[in-house]
């Protein structure tokens, strides 16, 4: 009853046989031929008795492949590292060769000064500490905004998925939401949600909800007709259809939306800091202050920290997506 297609058997036995080139006599050709003729049951026996020159050639090919793989792996970190070095070099060049002392201080201090005045200073009002504290504030705004966007976005998409008229009546306004410049909404948001944290969260939601809605809707609608037939055959309710077919099938698309939304929320939170200044100081507000006070090394430090924060959130969502989907979905985490 069992089928011959067990993919795990063949490659692994080939590997064990070629790692140690076997010293079998040429006479073993006969036995291996017999083993092959016996079919899959004899695969293991046959593999152990490959003629030595064949095994040697296989080992050689494997070595070439391994070397290539190692080279590729090295390239993964070496290439970005070289780029980083180049950027630092150009930075030094501009800072010391192209600029006079005043400009060097007010526009682009050299990299080591960013370290000595920014990253490496631990003080209440100077260096990295206020930056990290402001990132906590901004981060919290971004995460709350992201959570609201995800929940609300998925709910809206489910509503749009239940009926064509719901989709047709909501979609244009979702697009309007997406294309409206946040700047144009700032005065209204101030009136409605005040000058503090609430308005910052709203900005995040305004930026992040659209990708969640569209990707979720796309995912819900991507359930295949043959699966719908299977469900229809058993007369299931639309709720069962949603929970057992459409939502699980939409998960890869939802995670795609979540990634875009995560990036958008970080941007939204920083932008929100600029315009809604009441309450705890976020990193956007801090950037603005440093620029006004020409504290350039700290300005650059804060910028880099904000970047890293965005990358961390993005990578976390990617990791989560990969973890949840990789067991069944092919493309999960392919681009992390």
């Amino acid at each position: 009853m069992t089928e011959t297609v067990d993919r795990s058997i063949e490659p692994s036995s080939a590997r064990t046989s070629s790692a140690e080139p076997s010293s079998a006599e040429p006479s073993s050709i006969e036995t291996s031929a017999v083993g092959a003729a016996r079919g899959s049951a004899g695969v293991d026996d046959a593999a152990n008795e490959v003629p030595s020159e064949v095994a040697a050639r296989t080992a050689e090919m494997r070595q070439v492949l391994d070397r290539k793989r190692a080279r590729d792996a090295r390239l993964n970190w070496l290439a970005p590292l070289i780029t980083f070095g180049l950027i630092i070099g150009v930075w030094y060049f501009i800072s010391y060769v192209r600029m006079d002392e005043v400009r060097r201080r007010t526009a682009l201090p050299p990299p080591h000064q960013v370290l000595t005045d920014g990253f490496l200073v631990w003080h209440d009002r100077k260096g990295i500490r206020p930056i990290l504290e402001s990132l906590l504030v901004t981060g919290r705004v971004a995460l709350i905004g992201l959570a609201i966007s995800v929940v609300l976005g998925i709910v809206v998409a489910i509503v749009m998925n239940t009926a064509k008229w719901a989709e047709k009546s909501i979609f244009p306004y979702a697009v309007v939401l997406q294309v409206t410049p946040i700047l144009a909404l700032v005065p209204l948001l101030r009136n409605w949600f005040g000058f503090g944290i609430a308005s910052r969260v709203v900005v995040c939601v305004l930026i992040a909800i659209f990708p969640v809605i569209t990707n979720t809707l796309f995912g819900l609608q991507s359930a295949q007709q043959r699966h719908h037939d299977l469900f229809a055959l058993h007369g299931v309710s639309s709720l069962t259809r949603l929970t057992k077919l459409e939502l699980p099938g939409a998960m890869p698309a939802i995670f795609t939306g979540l990634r875009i939304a995560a990036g958008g929320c970080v941007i939204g939170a920083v932008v929100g800091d600029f315009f809604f200044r009441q309450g705890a100081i976020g990193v956007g507000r801090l950037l603005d202050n440093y620029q006004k006070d020409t504290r350039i090394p700290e300005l650059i430090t804060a910028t880099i920290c904000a970047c890293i924060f965005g990358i961390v959130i993005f990578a976390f969502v990617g990791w989560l997506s990969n973890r949840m989907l990789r067991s069944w979905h092919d493309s999960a985490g392919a681009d992390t």
Partner: protein
Amino acid sequence: MSTDVSLTFSDVSMIFPDGTHALDQITFTVDPGEFVALVGPSGCGKSTLLRIASGLTEHTGGVCDVPRDSIGYVFQDATLLPWRTVQRNVELLGEFHNMAKAERATRASDAIELVGLAGHEDKFPKQLSGGMQMRASVARSLVMEPKVFLFDEPFGALDEITRERLNDELLSLFRTKEFAGVFVTHSIAEAVFLSTRVITMSARPGRIISDIAIPFDYPRNPELRYEPEFAELCGDVSNSLKVAHA
């Protein structure tokens, strides 16, 4: 198991809204314990007939009498849910019909065992070969113990060797579970090997050309495929299809 179920098609016709005349006055019955194979050229409406039998498609003429509450339907491809393991896929229909969790699990395990997938319960569909996916699909239908089994070219995408093995296994299932079966296929040999009757259909609009009884007793050995009588019956089926196209 009681086998007091039969399928009846009388003058079933189907003309789609776009004017496609798919089926024309199809009349036949499938009695309990019968396994009927439908053979015909592509697009002759074989699959449409199964969809009508199962209630997925409404027909436009005639009467179709099928006990809808006890249908197993095996689709052209396995239609497994990719995010569920084999075990959970096979349990799906039990979930639809609010079967108790423990019973669902036991029945699923039994069905998985029966189709030879024991040991693969925790695998996801993408880890299975095409043949194994089809077995899982059959197991999924078995859980509800259907009295009528509709097969829509289930093994069409598989290689010859796997297909023949699955045919052998399907026959042993047919003998132990005693369902009435309708099996749509392109393969004449498959039709003759599996069924008690082969019904051939013409190209669109699909009409019944011939209804050929296959007198071999069950259990049928795989070697039956090489008997002269088997070849002769295949020839009959093939001829009736050719006549219709001449």
